[in-house]
């Protein structure tokens, strides 16, 4: 569906992306993951033919985006990070306008608008002015305009940006609902969001694909181990005694690196909560050891550490990217200061 080879995009002298090569097959839901400024939006804008590449080849459904942009645009639906909505139009008028712009025959426009309004659950607000809608509904209208012409490829740039938790859940369902009928590319800087909705993750860093695969593969690649969350109960004992007993039971397992006692997740006698850091997946062994020690297991689950995995993948360890950038700026300022203080060596 999408073939990108040696793609470069420069803004003036600044390289935004490149060299970037990847391939996305038809029907896939792919998440483009990266920090702010990594090149996600530029990549998506090139896919949507909003921007033209500086060099390299981008083909969508076999069509080159430079040579046949109009045909590519007819096959792509694009939701930018800021939905392109006219506040003075009603939802129905706007979707009809978007459909007509994208080659939907006049006789079919009303049906297409009704179909996408139903799919995105905006039928109730179809006759309201867009300017009067909530952010969540505006985002839905944005998705509706992206699919109103039945595109083969749907490109969504940060579709959950600014949504509340309930709206995020609804948006996830909506994006999942696009699977099958469309190939979908979604960008986000939130790894958990991508892993919830996508079949495959493309991690983009400094304009390049840093990694590609599923969340499980990502975890395996990093060999980081995992953390196990435990809630245990020992009848007739205090929470501290339960925690001590668990710690003793787990100390015999070679994979266990650290046991941390947390605030009890539930109220009740003898209930303790722990977090166990292990170097490999030993959840069964942990469960057996605890049961053999006479402890009741109320909860045993793997904690997701996707964000830290993501940062590690980008070579930043657990250091926050913003802190790194600030440090780079400081280093640059220091360098300039030293240069300014150094007398010129050029002859007078």
């Amino acid at each position, binding site marked *: 569906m999408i073939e990108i080879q040696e793609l470069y995009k420069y*803004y003036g002298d600044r390289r935004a992306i490149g060299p970037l090569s990847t391939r996305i097959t038809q029907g896939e839901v792919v998440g483009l993951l990266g920090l702010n400024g990594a090149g996600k939006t530029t990549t998506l804008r090139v896919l*949507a*033919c*909003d*921007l*033209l590449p500086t060099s390299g080849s981008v083909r969508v459904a076999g069509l080159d985006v430079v040579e046949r942009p*109009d*045909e590519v*645009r*007819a096959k*792509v639906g*694009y939701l*930018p990070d*800021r*939905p*392109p*909505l*006219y506040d*003075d*139009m009603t939802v129905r008028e706007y979707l009809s*306008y*978007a459909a*007509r*712009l*994208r*080659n939907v025959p006049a006789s079919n426009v009303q049906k297409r608008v009704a179909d996408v309004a139903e799919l995105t659950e905006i039928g109730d607000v179809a006759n309201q002015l867009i300017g009067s809608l909530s952010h969540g509904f505006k985002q839905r209208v944005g998705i509706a*305009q992206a699919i109103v012409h039945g595109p083969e490829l749907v490109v969504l740039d940060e579709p959950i940006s600014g949504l509340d938790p309930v709206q995020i859940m609804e948006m996830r369902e909506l994006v999942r609902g696009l699977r099958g009928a469309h190939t979908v590319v979604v960008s986000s800087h939130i790894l958990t969001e991508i892993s919830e909705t996508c079949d495959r993750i493309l991690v983009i860093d400094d304009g390049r694909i840093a990694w590609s695969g599923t969340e499980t593969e990502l975890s395996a690649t990093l060999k980081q181990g995992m953390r196990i969350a435990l809630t245990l109960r020992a009848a007739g004992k205090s929470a501290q005694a339960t925690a001590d007993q668990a710690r003793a039971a787990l100390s015999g397992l070679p994979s266990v690196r650290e046991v941390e006692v947390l605030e009890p997740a539930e109220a009740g006698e003898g209930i303790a909560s722990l977090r166990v850091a292990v170097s490999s997946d030993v959840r069964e062994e942990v469960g057996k050891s605890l049961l053999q020690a006479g402890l009741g297991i109320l909860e045993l689950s793997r904690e997701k550490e996707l964000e830290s995995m993501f940062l590690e993948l980008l070579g930043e360890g657990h250091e926050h990217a913003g802190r790194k950038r600030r440090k780079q700026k400081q280093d640059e300022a220091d360098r300039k200061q030293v240069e300014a203080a150094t007398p010129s060596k050029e002859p007078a």
Partner: protein
Amino acid sequence: MRALIIARRELYAYLRSPLGSAIIAAALLVDGILFYFASLDTKRLSAQLLSQFFYDSSAATMVAGLLLSMRLLAEERQAGTITLLNTAPIRDRDIVLGKFISSFGVLTLMNLLTAYMPLMVYIRGKVSVGHILVGYLGLILLGAAVTAIGLFASSLARSQVVAVIIGAAMVASMILLWVVARAVSPPFNTFFSGLALHHENYRPFMVGTLSFDRVAYYLMLTYFFLLSATKVLEARRWR
């Protein structure tokens, strides 16, 4: 034709927003007041009064043309809605043409609403229908050229205010070319006066003289600025 879909949407925006109505109302009011004072001079011949009307109306047309066109592309860029057009299977020239048609259509409507004044001169005085028609042709051509300049300025700026300032500067420069023409010696004086937006090229229409050179001048000027606006849009994809 895809340009007409955009033109329809833009006309709709003019009708819904108070801006379009306010600009038209203000221009008509100024036109009416100027015509009233011009008509108080009883020594003036009716043909002179008509010429004065077309002169005054040209100023209102230029100002209204700039104000109506300032939002065309600048507002789309400011609001981010230009992405909808940029990612639709539609050529940049159709975007520009659709925008131009809407703004020019509103401006022409505004000019036609002034027709009661020349009609009064026609009924009470001695002027030919040809003078009125040629005068309106001049106004419409001038309006098209100024709208195209305003559209080009709007393609350069993100803010409507900046767009109208750029457009006004360009129109003023082109009007003042006749002053430049006076200051330079032949053959440059002919060159500059031939390029002047108003003086040399518009006055014949005011007095009812139809010149195909002048018609061609305004049509070429309009085409040049519409083409320039299209090139600006195309260049933005490569930037």
